[in-house]
């Protein structure tokens, strides 16, 4: 493709995507495109019932089928693996231990109970159909209300009923504030279950080296390093005795282990030591089996001579769902190790809807204590999260709870706030992070503010403006603790959005709609999110969680002058290859085409716990790339200065020429400088200069903020909702690539439109999922998503690194803006919107056109 030359710098320009040069010609390489010679294929047998005991499994017919190589039952896999252990525990929370496949009990429709390995995927599926499983039904727990009834069976024996967490977080004198306020307004809001649904399902290829047994796992994962260690720890099963024997005299293995995760832990001693141990204490109080499994697992890992290599190539989206290590992937690793053969598993869409991750099914009762003059004073929230059957791994419903706790107050002044949270197990697919895992706090708060405004006789804008903190308040703190600095620009985004709204046009649209028997409404929503946030955000979230804000990058210059940057991110649509080349090219003073971006290989990239997720790619991954590039440039400049007999401070780089400022004619190329250094050091090829730096997130950071405005036009005959205008004013700081940022915002808003009007991961009363195809789970299409208008503020941060995150925001603001707009449209008909999901039938109920369903 055309060379994109450097002008004023690449950062800030809509540089065309490097990725597209292969992706658009059909030359991308997604996990299903990886076809190792002689590889086998896996298909899972899954539970058809929501809750039951496995009485027997007969695999003989499947095993007899031509082309079937092996069948593993749940028991076979349990025998070969360790359980998924609790991660990111919270005080008072019980996290069930569970296995890669189920051997005794099934807990949701789709729970994997047998694994068929065959010569083709079709044959593996044929084999799966021949596996006969006899179940003893248990009463299904299809929803949270049933889960908490006293006669309902427990999903997890060692939990407190089906409640896995019950927590209260209090900030300020809540009772006093509520007693003194003029009035208290209380409402209940419900959000339906949704599913992340990337267009590429989950999948993995586990290759076993015939000579060494080394595993190479090519995976569609957002978190390659976590997967590497999860695969190592969960499929290395040794008794303490075996491991002890293997360990004796093998200090080098400990060193090998330390050099892997060790560098990471070394940099994060402080975070690790400040971890909240109360989570572990409450876990062990309920279930000591962790102590039984941990020593064997740890010794198994320590005594291993070799750890898997995880490789990520092109990945077809994730939205959080590929951050969790799939149970199926661990089962496939165990099977590949057992057979010594390469196995590929590509999930189908039905499986992905059943078990690829679900989210957002939460119910909230919220009370706001307010004065009649419109002053917000106190807030109480009760939140119930439907956890489904199994925890996400490593990030489960606990992180949703913690983030909601911190974010709920939003940018408003509160004297006091209290949140009661429960996480409740049900017989459904697992609750995992979905683009802005906490986003329902914004939906509920912003929805509730409209309710309060109406009751007080104010407009939604007046109530927000009266209570929202802004520049004159900073620095200050949220009632939950985190510092708000000038990057907390939510109010500025609101002001800008109001400027951009054409009120006359809206009035005209409203009149036209009324005349035509339709209803027009306007909805506003405001939020801020830690992307990555100030250091004390993580303190407020959970002590030691600043681990998430850490990431290293590596950069090298080879003897031939090639510049390579290595990221620990795992891109799956966010265009890191382009944006990181932009950031690095500006630092190195070269063309974007001179930067090679390497990702996704755990042998060459640095450890990262989360990989890509949490809007971390810009600020944290990008910050690490910039810092590392800067550091490596210094090394190059220092060498060049010697060669040029100049002071390094006088050396600059333009267009790839390293020269004394003002004397570009007497310059050196990267190849010349690296070549000379290589000769000095006796290096023939490979890296001559290398730098590793960490984005530490302990001083930099800041908030990403936005205001969303939705204008909806409701057809009272059909219940269809059109969106004649949708506006986002957002602030993610200085933008690396405007077209890519706009794409992130629009994609997020589209998912929010899906959430409100189309998408429901619905279950019936027996725990059967009833949206298991795209005929029932409705992903919005090009005719449902309108033009989405975007305006940017670019507030700088005070720290060295001023990029801020933008991946999640579109989806955080949109459900609130849309549902507020619907209530505004239907207010004259007495509608009260309390559900996030508003399909046409619900719209007609709200409008009084049809009777509510029983």
């Amino acid at each position, binding site marked *: *493709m055309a060379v994109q030359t450097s002008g004023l710098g690449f950062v800030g320009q*809509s540089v*065309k*995507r490097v*990725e*597209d*040069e292969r*992706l*658009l*010609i*059909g*030359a*991308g*390489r*997604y996990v*299903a*495109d990886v*076809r190792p010679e002689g590889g086998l294929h896996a298909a899972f047998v899954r539970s058809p019932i929501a809750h039951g005991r496995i009485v027997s499994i007969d695999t003989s017919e499947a095993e007899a089928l*031509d*082309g079937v190589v092996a069948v593993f039952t749940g028991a076979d896999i349990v025998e070969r693996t360790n359980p998924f252990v609790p991660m990111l525990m919270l005080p008072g929370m019980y996290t069930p231990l569970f296995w890669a496949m189920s051997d005794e009990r099934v807990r949701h429709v789709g729970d994997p109970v047998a694994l068929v390995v065959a010569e083709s995927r*079709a*044959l593996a599926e*044929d084999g799966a159909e021949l596996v006969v499983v006899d179940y003893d039904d248990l009463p299904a727990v299809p929803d949270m209300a049933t889960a908490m009834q006293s006669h309902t069976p427990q999903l997890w024996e060692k939990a407190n009923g089906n409640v896995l967490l019950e927590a209260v977080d209090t900030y300020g004198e809540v009772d006093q504030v509520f007693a003194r306020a003029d009035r208290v307004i209380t409402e209940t809001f419900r959000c339906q279950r949704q599913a992340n*649904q*990337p*267009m*590429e*399902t989950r999948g993995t290829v586990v290759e076993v080296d015939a000579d060494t047994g080394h595993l190479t796992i090519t995976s569609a994962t957002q978190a390659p390093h976590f997967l590497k260690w999860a695969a190592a720890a969960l499929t290395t099963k040794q008794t303490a005795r075996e491991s002890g024997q293997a360990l004796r005299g093998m200090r080098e293995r400990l060193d090998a282990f330390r050099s892997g995760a060790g560098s990471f832990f070394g940099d994060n001693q402080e975070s690790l030591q400040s971890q909240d141990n109360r989570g572990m204490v409450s876990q062990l109080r309920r279930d000591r089996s962790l102590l039984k499994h941990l020593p064997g697992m740890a010794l198994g890992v320590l005594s291993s001579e070799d750890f898997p290599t995880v490789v990520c190539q*092109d*990945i*077809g*989206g994730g*939205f959080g769902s590929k951050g969790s290590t799939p149970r199926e992937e661990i089962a496939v690793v165990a099977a590949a190790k057992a057979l010594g053969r390469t196995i590929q598993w590509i999930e*189908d*869409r039905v499986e992905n809807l059943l078990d690829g991750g679900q989210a957002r099914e939460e119910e909230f009762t919220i009370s706001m204590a307010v004065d009649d003059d419109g002053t917000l004073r106190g807030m109480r929230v009760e939140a119930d999260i439907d956890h489904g059957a199994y925890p996400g791994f490593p990030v489960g419903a606990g992180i949703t709870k913690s983030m909601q706790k911190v974010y709920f107050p939003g940018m408003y002044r509160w004297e006091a706030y209290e949140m009661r949270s429960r996480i409740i197990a049900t017989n459904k697919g697992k609750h995992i992070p979905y683009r802005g895992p906490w986003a329902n706090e914004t939906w509920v708060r912003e929805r509730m503010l409209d309710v309060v405004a109406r009751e007080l006789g104010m407009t939604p804008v007046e109530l927000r403006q009266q209570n929202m903190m802004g520049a004159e308040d900073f620095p200050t703190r949220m009632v939950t603790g985190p510092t708000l600095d000038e990057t907390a620009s939510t109010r500025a985004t609101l002001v800008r959005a109001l400027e951009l709204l054409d009120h006359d046009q809206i009035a005209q649209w409203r009149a036209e709609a009324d005349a035509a028997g339709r209803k027009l409404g306007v909805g506003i929503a405001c939020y801020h999110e830690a992307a990555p946030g100030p250091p004390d955000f993580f303190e407020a979230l959970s002590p030691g969680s600043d681990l998430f804000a850490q990431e290293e990058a590596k950069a090298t210059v080879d003897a031939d002058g090639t510049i390579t940057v290595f990221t620990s991110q795992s891109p*799956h*649509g*966010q*265009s890191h290859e382009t944006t990181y080349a932009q950031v690095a090219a500006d630092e190195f003073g070269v063309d974007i085409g001179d930067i090679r971006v390497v990702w996704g290989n755990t042998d060459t990239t640095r450890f990262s716990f989360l990989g890509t997720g949490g809007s971390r790619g810009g600020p944290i991954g990008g910050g690490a790339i910039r810092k590392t590039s800067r550091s490596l440039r210094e090394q190059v400049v220092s060498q060049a200065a010697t060669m040029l007999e100049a002071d390094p401070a006088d050396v600059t780089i333009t267009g790839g020429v390293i020269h004394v400022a003002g004397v570009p004619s007497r310059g050196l190329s990267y190849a010349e400088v690296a070549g000379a250094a290589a000769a000095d050091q006796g290096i023939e090829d490979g890296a001559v200069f290398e730098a590793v730096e960490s984005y530490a997130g302990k001083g930099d950071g800041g908030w990403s903020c936005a205001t969303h405005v939705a204008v909806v036009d409701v057809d009272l005959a059909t219940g269809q909702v059109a969106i004649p205008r949708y506006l986002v004013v957002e602030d993610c700081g200085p933008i690396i690539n405007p*077209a*890519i940022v*706009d*794409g*992130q915002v*629009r*994609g*997020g*808003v*589209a*998912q929010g439109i899906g959430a409100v009007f189309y998408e429901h991961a619905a279950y019936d009363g027996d725990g059967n999922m009833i949206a298991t*195809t*795209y*005929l029932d789970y409705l*992903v919005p*299409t*090009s*005719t449902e*998503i309108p*033009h*989405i208008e975007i305006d940017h503020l670019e507030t700088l941060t005070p720290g060295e690194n001023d990029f801020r995150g933008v991946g999640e925001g579109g989806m955080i603001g949109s459900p609130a803006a849309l549902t507020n707009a619907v209530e505004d449209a239907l207010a004259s008909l007495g509608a009260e919107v309390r559900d996030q999901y508003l399909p046409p039938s619900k719209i007609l109920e709200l409008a009084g056109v049809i009777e509510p369903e029983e």
Partner: protein
Amino acid sequence: MTTVPIGTETEVTLRVNGEPRTISVEARTDLADALREGAGLTGTHLGCEHGVCGACTVLVDGEPARSCLMLAVSATTHEITTIEGLADGDEMHPVQRAMYEAMSFQCAFCSPGFMMSAVALLDREPNPTVEQIREELSGNLCRCTGYESIVRGVERAAAILRGEG
């Protein structure tokens, strides 16, 4: 009625991107699997395998078709075009170039299907309105972009094909 045991393969010749491809398929093998596994053309993607997402869209005699819903054995009498058949050597097809310039995609897993649908639309209607583009693309699901950048890509492609680009 005669029955054929599972796994029985037969050789068929498909005309793909202008070239004959002889590949071994079962009676039940769908066109998508035949293209991906038999012909090694992995640019055609499988998103749902039940005919809704459109990622597997190819052109059959110039008309867009879901290759996950068509049997390979029924494709032998037709001219099949896949994403790999669009470019002219190193030169991207105008639709691909337009999508590059409009930065239409993110993860791009859905992109082959969208581009095949766009090629078919522009072949039939060189001057589509935005509404026509949105209507035509509504058989292809994208989870990343919110569609706007893809619609712009098709508008751009139309301009290039009209000689305005």
